[in-house]
């Protein structure tokens, strides 16, 4: 099949860019560890709240781990528990969340924290809060009539 010379140049350039792009994304993911939140832990959605860590929602200091705090959320239609939390500036925090009922979103506006909460699964992300301010957590997956009322607040304080 004949391919025009200019089209060969165009496709070579395009495919070359594609390889470079996918390599950068791949190195970031597998060498630097920048993977999207993909926690594999499961849980019985009917008994969320009875077992650790979801029996103690909120900010909990931990010892001997790679992070200083665990920030635990339990989502249910149409709220997050806790509704407000203060985090010390510079703290390295593992956010751990799940849902008691339907699928919810967990997005902290102004940060890169954005994950799905699905019944039966735990979602986790580790982050360092290095900028003071108020960060709004919103549900970004439709969960019912009060979906747009579902929110929480993180205050990063000195």
């Amino acid at each position, binding site marked *: 099949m004949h391919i025009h010379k200019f089209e060969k140049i165009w*496709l070579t350039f395009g495919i070359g860019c594609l390889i470079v792009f996918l390599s950068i994304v791949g190195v970031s993911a597998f060498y630097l560890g920048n993977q999207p939140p993909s926690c594999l832990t499961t849980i019985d959605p009917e008994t969320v709240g009875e077992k650790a860590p979801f029996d103690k929602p909120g900010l909990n200091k931990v010892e001997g781990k790679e992070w200083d705090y665990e920030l635990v959320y339990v989502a249910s239609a149409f709220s997050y528990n806790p509704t407000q939390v203060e985090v010390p500036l510079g703290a390295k925090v593992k956010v751990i969340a799940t849902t008691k009922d339907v699928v919810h979103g967990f997005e902290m506006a102004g940060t890169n924290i954005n*994950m799905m909460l699905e019944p039966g699964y735990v979602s986790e992300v580790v982050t360092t809060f290095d900028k003071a301010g108020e960060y709004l957590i919103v549900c970004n997956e439709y969960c019912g009539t009060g979906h747009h009322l579902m929110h929480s607040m993180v205050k990063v304080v000195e």
Partner: protein
Amino acid sequence: MMNSNKLEKVDSRDAKLSMAYFYVAFIALALGGLAGLLQTLVRSGKVVLPWGIDYYQVLTVHGVLLGLVLTTFFIMGFQFALISRTTGTFTNGARITGWVGFWLMTIGTAMAATMVLLKEASVLYTFYAPLMAHPIFYIGLTLVIVGSWVAGGSMIATYAKWKRNNPGKASSLLTFMAIINTFMWIIATLGVAATVLIQILPWSLGLVDTIDILVSRTLFWYFGHPMVYFWLLPAYMCWYAIVPKIIGGKIFSDSLARLSFILFLLFSIPVGFHHQLVEPGIDPAWKYIQVVLTFMVIIPSLMTAFSLFATFESFGRSKGAKGLFGWFRKLPWGDARFVVPFIGMLSFIPAGAGGIINASHQMNAVIHNTIWVTGHFHLTAATAVVLTFFGISYWLIPHLTGRVLTKAMNKLAIIQGIVWTIGMSFMSGAMHAAGLLGAPRRSSFSEYGGAAQAQEWIPYQIAQAVGGSILFIGIILVLIIFINLAFFAPKGETEFPVGEVADGAEKPPLVFENWKLWLGISAALILFAYTIPFIDIIQNAPPGSKGYKFW
């Protein structure tokens, strides 16, 4: 372009079948467009819906009617006309099968719509479990899918019969493209049919108590991404093989057009995980593998862009254009059949760039489920695809109804394209910007407890309402033109433009129609991308979920 020879016409019986699909499609456009207008008004915070109508009910109407009904019905009507024109009139049996498909789809739509209007199915068009709608909603959607299989089967049978009668010959390019799209649709819808029939329906009927959420979502997104390519490929058919004829040029390369469609068939399906990048329960290595497969469609997209502009430039130069961009001015800027799809093509440049961001493994977390995504698919589906569909209607409807597009209607159609461009720039632009600031998609107006960040989103939401209102004017204009072309335009003959290949071009290799080969590779890629992660998802499944009705 109009010559005095007898125009090649779609048989009037086939034309009736196509028109039946178009009537439903344009009714869906009218109602779904109105729902869209209401959404943008509510979200501006300035308007409250009367009579206790729920925002999410309106949102379900908008998504189901425009995302599922308008697209699927238009595409079926278009493909029936294409095959009838380029392969030959349907046999009575094939045509009756087409009608059976039409009625199944229409009855299914009516059933689903009734449940939505009765507030029994405010689950949006993605119907994610464990939100549980009335079983009739799911049965209705199943009939739409089954109807589309019956209609697709009629097209494939017609093509297969032609192949048997013409051994060793290449099929017409447009029929080939329509058949690729039909195969892609059938393979893709197996996923959504599986989750609805095996999981959701028994659960909503109370036959089983719980449902596996991640299996259902994975099957849905196995379908969800090829669905958007199912919308896009008919637009590509127009760009590749119809627009060249409209401007008076030639198809750049028949073989490359076929190759790019085969690449779309192969790389549109095994990629659903890029919609599930921030979901728990899926190994990130498999997510990355599907991200790589997702990006393979960039190759046929680059080929398409090259071919289209090569056609435009060669045509302009053949008319004596000089300089690097002189050919641009030679294009028929007064012809709506060209101008409207051309706006669609241009919109696909930012739309494609946004899509690359969305599927980029890590970058996805910045925009996932924000209103950026809504802005994105209003450029792809609601501009590139839909404007091309409108452009197709401006010659296809009068061709099928034996009428002509008058000068006044042609002018109105160009104005419509401009109105759409302005409206969409406001709406989609504001959606992209608000999404980057964190505003979620699919959400009614909210101040989120007075949060400062949420205040920043409101001006953009007002801009979306302005854009949405302008777009609604655009919909009214399209409906005026459609009704005119269907019922009132002057009688006459309208050309069904079918592009010709450039002189001296070689014949397309027959390997392109070796379906065992391409469907085999497609199946192999799907099995590669999905088998292991799907087994993992099933083996590591948590206890299932019972149903919820939170509306």
